[in-house]
């Protein structure tokens, strides 16, 4: 298998996706649509307090109520013990903390934490029943701010949590779960060589992924011990494995069905309702379905951490960066495990800097336990660095793209973890940005209170590989049924099938991709880390190769020639002047009684890093503080774009989420730790009216670590918008915005303070 971006037949085309018709007609079965005969409904009781001890839970009134079928609390689950387990794409997690996040054991660390669950015949009856559960709380004052939580005299949220630094744990409990440090070169010498040293602090708010489909789970615990679970997740194998751990149940007796998923963005890579529905079902012997409402999704699942960040940078008068310090403090939420480590690794990725020190702090606060959100950790961290760079460029009177090109990281340069870049498309992306009509265009005049500004920002994301499985079954008519293990979150059935079709030289319409349940395909990792088109695509290519090799073997017998004498090119098998096209070959093999099944489990580990540049034009109404996005261009290196309309779609969607993060979205809390805006009315996500058309430019620098040059594409486009928007607003109003979101209130205040 060789890399390259030569002439492809299928790769780079724009077929209609295989699951499209089901999704435009309303027929697709999402997790929320799952049902079974005899199904009943579960609902949970959530803590109204952000921090409390649970002195007791009295379920007797609920259990006595006629409509209630079952009640469960933390006592109905196995004791998690003291171990750790690999969580579904979230690094190592304490089993106890994972278990408490599903259902509390003796303490509450955020508003919305699950206390108990009930099952009843209808959702309304279940909702009524939870009000019959009496909980005796000892309410404690919450810690809501990351800086406050890091103080020595801050109340300790988890008395069993000790700060870890490089494998060593502090003796005293602390709210700082982990201190990451990455240092190379000589930072002080770098500052000494600088003509300008600037230091600024930045903050971003806790925000939610905002997928439209709430979390859901349907579970049926059969009397023979088999547990069947249907839920929408970004990885049904991860759901199975977390259930096996949490319920101490054999993996072979858990079958997870992959429902269609209505958005995830990292937030659906772990269990919330699945274990509760399973244990309720075991108690009553009937299928139990649970869904969250929107308020539960906001307060009870895993938003992205808010962050407080300080960046110090030295540059020469020519604009060369000589040294940088980045300090990142992230809100993990009620249990440890924020994305701060990835924030550390990404924060200076677009820049070649020899002297750096990056410190990351994973800090618990009494807010929901944060979880992955699209390029987790990178948007916050890179916002701080890119916003400081914009101030430096202003000070140096230097073009911000010229500054980025001068300092651009390239192959062989040092990464934060000390390793070096493989071939990357950073400089190519910057050059493409300079060449855009947008960058070359005039911004247009500011008039009166309507001030215009332009901002640019960089983005960098690692991308992931890991284990994926695919099975390709040859049908007698020459079509192929492709089983692949990755949950399809938005078009990857097709991007994977296209790679198989490319290899076999057959039309994409002749491939029918499906995502089977956990019993019917081998392990496949989570749909996250921008890994699916890369790693599962790789598995599909290997499965195609296996299928082709078996066809060659079969044809060697059919033709009675040595297999080595048969060549295969563009879907045609040939030997000694005789040829069979793919369909004819399939028919011949079927006639011979052969059943050809190609399969592969691949674990590729050379995902290519990826880069983006975004350009934003805004108009700020200085009277109201409202920011309108006038024009927006997103560029990124996709490696080879397998399925371009969905590469563009990822870029456009990332921009929309990033603009929301920059302008409006935030968790707003009362002093006692209750979220004040837990609905879609008050948690303000961008609508169609808030955005312009989004111009996209796909740069293609193939990844040598993939047969067709794939890099991941899904995550990096959410990285630049925070700084691009903040820089554009600052350019418009002449005042720096360092705390996001730049909501009308904040912008208006910034303008007023500067007057």
């Amino acid at each position, binding site marked *: 298998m060789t890399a390259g971006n030569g002439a492809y037949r299928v790769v780079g085309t724009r077929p209609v996706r295989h699951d499209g018709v089901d999704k*435009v007609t309303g027929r697709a079965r999402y997790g929320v649509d799952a049902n079974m005969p005899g199904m009943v409904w579960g609902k949970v009781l959530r803590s109204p307090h952000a921090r409390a001890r649970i002195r007791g839970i009295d379920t007797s009134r609920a259990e006595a109520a006629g409509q209630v079928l079952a009640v469960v609390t933390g006592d109905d689950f196995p004791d998690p013990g003291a171990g750790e387990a690999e969580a579904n794409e979230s690094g190592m997690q304490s089993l106890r903390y994972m278990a408490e996040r599903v259902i509390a054991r003796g303490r509450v660390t955020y508003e919305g934490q699950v206390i108990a669950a009930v099952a009843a015949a209808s959702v309304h009856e279940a909702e009524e029943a939870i009000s019959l559960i009496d909980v005796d709380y000892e309410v404690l004052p919450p810690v809501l701010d990351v800086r406050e939580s890091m103080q020595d005299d801050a109340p300790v949220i988890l008395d069993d949590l000790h700060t870890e630094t490089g494998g060593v744990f502090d003796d005293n409990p602390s709210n700082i779960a982990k201190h990451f440090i990455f240092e190379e070169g000589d930072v002080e010498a770098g500052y000494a060589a600088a003509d300008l040293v600037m230091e600024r602090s930045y903050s971003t708010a806790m925000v939610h992924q905002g997928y439209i489909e709430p979390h859901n789970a349907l579970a049926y615990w059969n009397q023979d011990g088999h547990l069947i679970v249907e839920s929408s997740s970004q990885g049904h194998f991860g759901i199975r494995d977390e259930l096996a751990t949490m319920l101490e149940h054999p993996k072979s007796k858990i079958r997870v069905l992959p429902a269609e998923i209505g958005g995830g963005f990292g937030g659906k890579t772990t269990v919330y309702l699945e274990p509760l529905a399973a244990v309720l079902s075991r108690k009553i012997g009937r299928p139990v379905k649970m869904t969250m409402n929107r308020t539960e999704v906001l307060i009870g699942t895993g938003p992205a951490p808010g962050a407080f960040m300080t960046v110090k940078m030295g540059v020469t008068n020519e604009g060369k960066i000589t040294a940088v310090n980045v300090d990142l403090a992230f809100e993990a939420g009620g249990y440890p495990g924020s994305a701060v480590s990835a924030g550390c690794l990404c924060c200076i990725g677009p820049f070649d800097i020899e002297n750096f020190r990056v410190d990351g702090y994973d800090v618990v606060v009494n807010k929901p336990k944060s979880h992955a959100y699209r390029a987790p950790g990178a948007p916050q961290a890179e916002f701080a660095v890119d916003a400081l760079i914009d101030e430096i460029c202003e000070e140096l009177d230097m073009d911000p793209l010229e500054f980025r090109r001068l300092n651009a990281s390239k192959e062989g340069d040092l990464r934060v973890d000390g390793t070096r870049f493989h071939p990357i498309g950073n400089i190519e992306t910057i050059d493409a940005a300079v060449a855009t009509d947008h960058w070359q265009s005039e911004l247009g005049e500011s008039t009166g209170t309507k001030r215009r500004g332009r901002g640019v920002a960089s983005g960098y994301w690692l991308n992931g590989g890991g284990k994926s499985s695919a099975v390709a079954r040859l049908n007698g008519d020459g079509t192929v049924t492709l089983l692949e293990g990755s949950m399809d979150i938005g078009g990857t059935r097709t991007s994977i099938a296209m790679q198989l079709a490319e290899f076999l030289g057959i039309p994409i319409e002749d491939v029918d991709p499906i995502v089977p349940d956990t019993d019917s395909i081998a392990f496949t990792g989570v749909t996250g880390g921008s890994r699916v088109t890369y790693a599962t695509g790789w598995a599909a290519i290997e499965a195609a190769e296996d299928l082709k090799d078996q066809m060659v073997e079969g044809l060697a017998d059919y033709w009675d020639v040595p297999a080595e004498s048969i060549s295969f090119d563009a879907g045609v098998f040939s030997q000694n002047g005789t040829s069979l096209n793919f369909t004819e070959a399939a028919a011949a093999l079927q006639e011979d009684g052969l059943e050809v099944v190609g399969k592969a489990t691949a674990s590729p580990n050379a995902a290519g890093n990826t880069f983006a540049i975004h350009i934003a034009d805004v108009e700020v109404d200085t009277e109201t503080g409202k920011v309108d996005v006038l024009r927006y261009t997103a560029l990124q290196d996709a490696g080879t774009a397998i399925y371009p309309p969905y590469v563009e779609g990822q870029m456009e969607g990332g921009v929309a989420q990033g603009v929301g993060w920059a302008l409006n979205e935030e968790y707003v809390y009362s002093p006692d730790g209750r979220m004040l805006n837990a609905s879609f009315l008050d948690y303000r996500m961008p609508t*169609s009216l808030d955005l312009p058309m989004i111009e996209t430019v796909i740069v293609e620098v193939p990844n040598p670590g993939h047969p067709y040059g794939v890099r991941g594409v899904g995550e990096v486009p959410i990285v630049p918008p925070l700084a691009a928007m903040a820089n554009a607003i600052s350019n418009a109003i002449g005042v720096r915005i360092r705390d996001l979101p730049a909501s009308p209130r904040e912008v208006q205040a910034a303008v007023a303070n500067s007057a």
Partner: protein
Amino acid sequence: MATEILSGKVHVQTTINGEQVDFLAEPRESLLEVLRDHLGLTGAKEGCNNGNCGACNVVMDGALVNSCCVLSVEAAGASIETIEGVASPEGLHPLQQSFLENAALQCGVCTPGFIVAAKALLEENPNPTEYEVRWWLAGNLCRCTGYDKIVRAVLDAAERMRAEA
């Protein structure tokens, strides 16, 4: 046409996608719950349950509504169109075809709401501007696409439908 019966449930007669439908519902149940949980019409989705996301859009007596904010008993005597009634035996509606060809969906969970809403727009205004499409669809949240391809798909479908008319 809405008659309370002994169980506390109400007997409702309504018309859905041109067919007469009878159902029993508790007075507190929304039209969305009845469509999804009693009638098996799961194309309309619950995204927020308070009228802010449009995932549950249906047309009721010619008006675009959020079915999560309509009580099921209000459907008595009404004529309701859902996503399940948009395609015909002859094939997909031009909007559905246009959404597919313009890649105007990613996860697809908001798509039924967008198509129902866009169909209502094009019935009222067959030649909308980009701004008019954005204004009309501002009640529908999509978190995947950034709306770009959705707006293009609606404009494209409008053009196809004008050409066919």
